[in-house]
């Protein structure tokens, strides 16, 4: 009887919790992306985001970043010189959130961008947009230029892949807004 009750409890908890444990597929681990993007950095910091910076992002993008969906990490040399920063955020999509990471140089130029996490369903559409784990076609974009979805893996022509290219490009533009606000705040 006791075993039956324990089984029922375990089963019930599983039923209750499986609704919110849909794990994403991790395409790039955040720490690995930070280290690979800022190779000269020896010290890393998490940067906090003040209200004026948040308001600036909202003004530019119409989206309000929160600590839950946005993280900013800064890499510095041993002497303290800024090597660059990395912004991680989640972009909503038809099939759930897409994790995006964008690394910036000291002047805000994009060093590289990637998709860190994506659901298993859109994986087949997102993976062709990546080259060696990095979103092809976005590096070198200056802070004043919005990323063009057409530059992301233009040889990939599927409708859903192009849809995700737009989602990713918009996510990168949000990351640019965060980076700009973060620098000026």
């Amino acid at each position, binding site marked *: 009887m006791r075993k*039956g009750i324990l*089984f*029922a*409890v*375990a*089963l*019930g*908890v*599983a*039923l*209750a*919790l*499986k*609704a*919110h*444990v*849909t*794990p994403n597929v*991790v395409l790039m*681990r*955040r*720490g*690995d992306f*930070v*280290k690979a993007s800022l190779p000269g950095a020896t*010290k*890393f*910091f*998490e*940067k*906090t*985001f*003040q*209200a004026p910076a*948040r308001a600036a992002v909202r003004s530019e993008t119409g989206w309000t970043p*929160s*600590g*839950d*969906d946005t993280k900013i*990490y*800064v890499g510095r040399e041993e002497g303290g010189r800024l090597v660059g920063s990395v912004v991680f955020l*989640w972009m*909503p999509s038809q*099939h*759930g*959130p897409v994790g995006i990471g964008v690394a910036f140089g000291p002047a805000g130029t994009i060093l590289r961008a990637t998709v860190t996490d994506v659901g298993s369903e859109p994986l087949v559409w997102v993976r062709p947009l990546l080259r060696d784990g990095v979103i092809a076609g976005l590096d070198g974009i200056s802070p004043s230029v919005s990323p063009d979805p057409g530059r992301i893996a233009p040889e990939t022509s599927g409708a859903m892949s192009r849809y995700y290219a737009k989602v990713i490009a918009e996510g990168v533009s949000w990351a640019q807004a965060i980076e700009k606000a973060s620098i000026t*705040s």
Partner: protein
Amino acid sequence: MGKLPGSALEVRLAATLFLLLLGLANLFGVWEVRNFASFTPEGVASAVGASGHERHGMSGAAAGEKPVDVETLNEPKHHIDRELLVQDSHVHIPVYAITAAFLALIVFALRLTSGSRVALVLLAFAAPLLDFVGLWGAHLWSESGRLWGAVAILGGVLMGLVYLAVLGLTLKQCWLSNSEKGEADA
């Protein structure tokens, strides 16, 4: 009503195999929860609640940088934000409803009192509702996240109990009780 135990072999087989397959899915659910979530109210609250930054509001945070060990960024975290909770609600609630409906159909076909049927049907549908009320409560009111986490777990426990009750009654009435099963087999 109550004709499943005396129904044809293939009908009893279909009902039983549905229940057993559902149980198999639930066992994998246990595994998934062990990997990615928690079995405690605190764990549920942590999984779906607002993060510390969001809970306290970033406007109150001091400007600046705090040191971070970059290796810790590689540790997998399965925090569920609002967008994912919306998506999961959209996907799972219909599936739960369909599952409850199938369980209710089997309940109708079992030899039970009307009161027992009513209770099982109500519990079958109320349990997933409690589950998602708990999840959303933990997300929206993270200060009382443990309470809402407990509500979600209560919903899950009820789901498990209803499932086991229906499975047990089906096995007993369709296969183990000689006086009830297979009247149509003859």
